Structures are given as structure tokens and as C-alpha cells.
């Protein structure tokens, strides 16, 4: 019952009186609808009170109106967590700014003797009500957090139900008392608009800020001289105002964006266990391949012979890669004499690793700058960027017991031979010192 009274009857009364009352007042007494200025009487308090109050309340009211008029847009904006955080904290700061401004304005009305003369009771009531209403708003921001998000399911549809003449109290009947009080306060203000200085909100002098300067001067000769100067100063002031607002907005947005990213960058990721495990595995396998590399190096330091492979594994057209004693790649083929043919795979041009497939002309290819090397002579083709031939490597063939069957040095001088039955078990090695192979 009381809900119906406060949230259905009161709104319609308020809207009716507010709208038609304001129109009536503006029509009948147009000169009174801008608020009575007191700047002549007292200036300092006005600056510290009026400015924060009006800045704060304008932005807050605008946010309320956007949230009510464009719920879809609003929802899409606040669905980003960071935006919601920013919005809520800005809102709270602004409401505190409003409260402070209101306090200054109220004290000023109460204490300045000159102002007492022009202050009506209605002014004082309005200030008190505003204090209460803004205080409620701030309290909601603190106690019922994320109002900018939950409003879209509660108060917004309620307001729309009022506007569309299908009043539905159920949207807000379960709301906390704070919120209900705030809503009642809002309707009361709409009701009070035609009867108080609140009506001046329909006469916001926005254009004053940025309009071309108008300087009212007495037209005597002395004043005319300074007129130009004043004009220029005003013009510059106008530009500085624009500059300030632009830089402030841009700087604010940039710094918020940067701060957000910078913080989360340094905070670092907190990974799920599965992802973390996968990452660990990758790290470990990379470490293992480094370990393998180091072991190869060590082996080449320590041992005199390095296994290339079984003699029977060697192929005439598809070379087998191995790493020589200087940790450079090399390839093993089977030569025409059925013996191993070992050739360096480090391109003599710029050191890329040469491919191991022999083409139909008996050549292997370095992919970096397209040099073809003949595997028998080692010589590059005529047009190749590489000029020097790939050097051959010497080799040693041993049987299973480790006794040497045959060997060849890097210059191609061979000795010994491998019989057909020995071939099966024969293994090809490279030797550390050339002297040992010869």
C-alpha cells in the first residue's frame, strides 16, 4: 500500500506538477527561471562551493539519465569489469565532491550577512534535501556496490514502467531501504522543481564557457583603450579552457588505460595448473636438448673416435648427418667404391647447413643462397655464390671388436679393405687426429 503510494502515486504527481508547473512558470515568469545570482554579494565561498557542486552533480545526473534512457548501451559499457570499477570510483568521488560543495554553499547561506537578506526558506530546504539525497547516493555507492550494474535489472525497468504508464513496483519492492529512500527523494525533487531555484537547471549557461568573448564596457575613451587588450586576453582564455578540457580528458583516459595494462603486466599471469604443467614440460624439453648439445661437445672433447653409423646404413643418394669434431655438421654418403664418402655440410659461402639429398647430377644444395656442391669433388657450381669446395673428411672403419679394417684420410688416401662378410658388422667412425687416420 505504502509502496504504491510512494512509487506510483508520488511519481505521477511529481511528473505532472514538475512538467506543467515548470512550463507554467517559464511561460508566466520567464525572468525567474534562472537562479538568483549571489556572485555580487559574496564571491569566494561561491567559487569553492558552487563549482564543485555543479561539476559533480552535472556528471552524476548525466550518468543517471544515460543509464535510464539507454539501458542497452549502458549495460554494454559496464559489463567490462575495469570500466565498472572506474565508473563506481569516479561516481563516489564526484558525490563526495558534491557533498563538500553543498556544505560550503549551505554554510555560506547561513553565515554571510549579506546573503541572509536574499535567502528564502525554500533555498535552505532545497540545500538540506540535496545534502540528504546526495548523501543517500554516496551511501548506496558504498553499501550497495555496483549500482551502475544492478540498476539495469531494477530501477531502470521501474522508471520505464512509470514512463510507459504501466507502473510496476515489483522491480524495486525488494530493494534495500537506502535505495528506496533515494528514489522517493528523486521524485520529491521533480515535484519541487517549479517551486524553487531548482528550475534553473533548464537554463544552464553552457555556451558561456566557450562563446566568443563579450566585454561589456562603458563607451568612454579611457575604457576603449584597454578594450582591445581585454579582448585578446579573453580570446586566449577561451582557447586555454578548451585546451585544458581536451588535455585533461585525453590524459585521464591514456593514464587509466596505461596504468591498468602496466599493472597487470607486472603482476604477471596466474596460470591454471594444466597450463603451468605444459609450460614446465616445454621448458624441461628445451633444457634437455641443451643438455644433449653439451654432451655432444663433451664427447668430442673426450673421445678419439666418433661413430658415424653402420657401413650398411649409408646411402648413395640420401646422406646421413653427423657432427664432426669441431661441432660442425657433416654428411656421410656411400661412395661409388662402396666405401664411405664423408663431406662437410657447412656451406663455404656463409655457413648454412647444406642439404643431404643428392640430385641427378650428383650434387647437394645449400638452401640459403642456392649453391650446388658436387659430392665427389666438393666443388660448387659455376654460378654459385660459394667459391671454395666443401672439404672431405677422413674416416676409419672398425669391426665389432674395435680393430681397424680400413681408413682414409681427408686427402683421399686410403688403406685396408673390407671383405663382404665384414661389411655387415663394420662401423664408420671419424677420428680426432688426422695423424691417426693416416
Amino acid at each position: 500500500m505504502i509502496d504504491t503510494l510512494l512509487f506510483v502515486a508520488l511519481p505521477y504527481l511529481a511528473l505532472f506538477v514538475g512538467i506543467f508547473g515548470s512550463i507554467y512558470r517559464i511561460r508566466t515568469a520567464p525572468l525567474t527561471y534562472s537562479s538568483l545570482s549571489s556572485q555580487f554579494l559574496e564571491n569566494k565561498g561561491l567559487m569553492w562551493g558552487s563549482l564543485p557542486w555543479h561539476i559533480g552533480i552535472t556528471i552524476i545526473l548525466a550518468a543517471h539519465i544515460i543509464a535510464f534512457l539507454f539501458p542497452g548501451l549502458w549495460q554494454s559499457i559496464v559489463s567490462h569489469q575495469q570500466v565498472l570499477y572506474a565508473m563506481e570510483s569516479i561516481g563516489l568521488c564526484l558525490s563526495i565532491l558534491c557533498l563538500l560543495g553543498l556544505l560550503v554553499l549551505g554554510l555560506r547561506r547561513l553565515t554571510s550577512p549579506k546573503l541572509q537578506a536574499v535567502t528564502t526558506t525554500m533555498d535552505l530546504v532545497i540545500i538540506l534535501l540535496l545534502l540528504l539525497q546526495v548523501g543517500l547516493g554516496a551511501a548506496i555507492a558504498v553499501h550497495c556496490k555496483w549500482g551502475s550494474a544492478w540498476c539495469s535489472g531494477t530501477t531502470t525497468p521501474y522508471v520505464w514502467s512509470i514512463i510507459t504508464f504501466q507502473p510496476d513496483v515489483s522491480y524495486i519492492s525488494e530493494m534495500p531501504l537506502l535505495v528506496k529512500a533515494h528514489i522517493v527523494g528523486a521524485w520529491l525533487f521533480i515535484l519541487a522543481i517549479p517551486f524553487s531555484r531548482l528550475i534553473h537547471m533548464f537554463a544552464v549557461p553552457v555556451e558561456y564557457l566557450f562563446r566568443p568573448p563579450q566585454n561589456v564596457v562603458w563607451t568612454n575613451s579611457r575604457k576603449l583603450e584597454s578594450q582591445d587588450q581585454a579582448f585578446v586576453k579573453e580570446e586566449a582564455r577561451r582557447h586555454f579552457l578548451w585546451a585544458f578540457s581536451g588535455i585533461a580528458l585525453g590524459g585521464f583516459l591514456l593514464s587509466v588505460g596505461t596504468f591498468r595494462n602496466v599493472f597487470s603486466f607486472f603482476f604477471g599471469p596466474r596460470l591454471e595448473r594444466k597450463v603451468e604443467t605444459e609450460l614446465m614440460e616445454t621448458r624441461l624439453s628445451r633444457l634437455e636438448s641443451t643438455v644433449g648439445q653439451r654432451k655432444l661437445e663433451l664427447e668430442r672433447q673426450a673421445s678419439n673416435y666418433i661413430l658415424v653409423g653402420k657401413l650398411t646404413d649409408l646411402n648413395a643418394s640420401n646422406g646421413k648427418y653427423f657432427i664432426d669434431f669441431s661441432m660442425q655438421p657433416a654428411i656421410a654418403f656411400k661412395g661409388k667404391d662402396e666405401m664411405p664418402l664423408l663431406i662437410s655440410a657447412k656451406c663455404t659461402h656463409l655457413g648454412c647447413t647444406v642439404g643431404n639429398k643428392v640430385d641427378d647430377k650428383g650434387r647437394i644444395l645449400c638452401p640459403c643462397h642456392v649453391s650446388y656442391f658436387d659430392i665427389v669433388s666438393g666443388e660448387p657450381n659455376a654460378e654459385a655464390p660459394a667459391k671454395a669446395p666443401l672439404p672431405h673428411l677422413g674416416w676409419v672403419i672398425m669391426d665389432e671388436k674395435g680393430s681397424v679394417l680400413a681408413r682414409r684420410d681427408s686427402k683421399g688416401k686410403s688403406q685396408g679393405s673390407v671383405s663382404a662378410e665384414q661389411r655387415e658388422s663394420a662401423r664408420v667412425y671419424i677420428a680426432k687426429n688426422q695423424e691417426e687416420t693416416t
Partner: protein
Amino acid sequence: MIDLDKAAHKVSGFLSERIPVEKLNFHSMVEKKEVPIHKMSWGYYTGGLTMFFFLIQVVTGLFLLFYYQPTVSDAHVSVEYISHYVAGGALIRNMHAWSSSCMIFCAMVHLLTAFAMKSFEKPREITWIAGVLLLFITFTFGFTGYLLPWNQIAVNATKVGLQSVEYVGQYLPGQLADVPRILRETFQGEASVGQSTLGRFYALHVVILPLLLASLLGLHLLMVQLHGMSQGVDKPAKKAEKFISIFVFKDLSLWATVFLALFVVALCIPFDSFLPFPLLAPFNALGSTPQGIKPEWYFFFVYYPLELLPFWVILLASMVAVAVLIFAPWIFKGTSRRTLGFITLSASAYLVVMTVFGEQIYEFFKH
């Protein structure tokens, strides 16, 4: 002895002309400085833009330092970690990559415009030489930074690059022939590009080059402020604007716009996308070199000619080019701005053609 005295006198005379001590104060270096307005005025912004990209490099580079690990086993993983897991990491890394290219591009444009505007004229020789050295340092930055992700293209391109240094040796006489090899081994640190190379390049890229660049940049800027903006055109400009605050704020506004463009590009196009993905795999020390190894685009102007022409031609040409660049203030002392403009245009045409169509030209001649 007399000769020594004469030489000393000459040096001090040279320096006092270039560094007018009486102008070394805030008033004449900052307050009084003016920037001429004429049809080439845009040239005055290119230097600031280069510095802006350098600042971005410093900041994003510092960010990357927090996560990057310069070891052969971890480098690639840590870079992937930055891209895939750290919040904003992909953006920062991508910005670092894009901005490096932009910095080099701007530095080249700055050099070209300064040349065309004859900004190296007496007494600005020191500014010019410092600027040329700055450009070389910037290239070295690009080369050393390329290795750090330790993927296939990084290591193999570095291998080829370092090996090319050694290649110079065969054209040097006697004892000198060994110098390039020793130089390569110093930078490489071991038999082939490996952990030692990575450590050295990392130290260069992160500490030594930035220090060098910052100090040279300090000298460069001091000189610019000392001598004021060069006239830039033949007829002295009628109009000029104050450096403080008009030009500075205009510069800032340009920086903001450029930052926006960089931000959008870095957010939307991963720099790595331009390479085939096998080249982005972690470097495999025991595999063969994959196809398609080539340097970054800003080396194309020397890379493709290098592929097409004999090495000594390129060596000779680049040595001449470097000498001409460094001694430009003396070589082109009497050259008119018209001629300089023509030289600049032809040089730019060459750079653009080689960078954009280099690959096609290479294919055309090789096949």
C-alpha cells in the same frame, strides 16, 4: 713542434666555431629558439619522431626485460610466455617490434630530409656526424635484437650476417685479412652461434648500445639546440614559430597521433605474421637450415644487391657510401639545395625500390 702547435690551434679553432660557448645558456638555446615555417617544415618533425620511437623502445624494452631470459634453452620459451600468458605482453612485444621498424624508418627519412635541406652546413658538422653514427647504432640495435627470440630465422640470419663479416677478410691484404675473422669470433664467442653469442648480443642490445645511443643523442640534441634549426631552404623563411611552446606542443600532438597508429597496428597485426611459421620455431642446433632465411626489411637495400652482385662490389659501394655520408658536410659544401634534393630523391627511389621490389628483382635475375 710548430706543426703541433698549428694543429692544436686548428683544432681549437674548429671546435670554438662549432661550439659557441657564449650561446651555451638556457636563454639562447631554448627560449630564443625558433623554427622556420616553409614548405619543407615537415622535415623538422622527423628527428623528434625518431626520438619518440626510441623512447617507446626504451619503455617497452624495459618491460620485456622483466620476463625475457637470455639463454639458449629459455629464450624462446620466455618470449612465448610473454606473448601468450603475460597480460598485455603480446601488445608490448609487438609494439617493440613495430616501433623498432618505425624508428629505423624515421631515422632514415630524417637523414634524407636533413641531407636535402643541407642541414649539415657549417657550423652543424658535429650534429650531422653524430646523426650518421646514431643511424648506424640503430641498425646495430636491429641486428642484435633480431637474435634474441632465438627462433630459426633469428639464429640463421645472425649466422649469415656474422659470416658475411668474415667474408670481408679475403679482400684485405696481409695481416689485415685476419681482422674480420677475429672480429666475428669476438662477437660470436664460440665455434658457431650459440649461448656465448646470445649473451653478447643481449649485453649489446640491452646495455651497451642504449648507453652509446643515449650519449650520442645527447650530443646531437645539444648541438641542435645550440645552433638552432637550420634554414632548410634557399630563401630565408619569412615566418617562424617559437620552439617553446608552439613547436613543442605541435610535436607532442604529432607524437600522440603516431602513438595511436602504433597502438592500433601493434594490437591488430602481430609482427611475426609476416614470416612463414617454420621460421618461428625454436632454433634447432642439430637440424639443417630452413628455407627463406632473410634479414629484416631494413637491410634489404644491401641484402638483395649482395645476393645478385659480387661481394666486392657491394663492399666497395657500401664503404664509399659510408664515407660519403660521414664527410658529406665537406663533400657537398658547395652543392646547391636543388642538386642535393635530386641526389636525395634518387637515393630514396633506390631504397624504396630495393625494399619493396627487392625480392622480385632477385627472382627475375636468378631464374
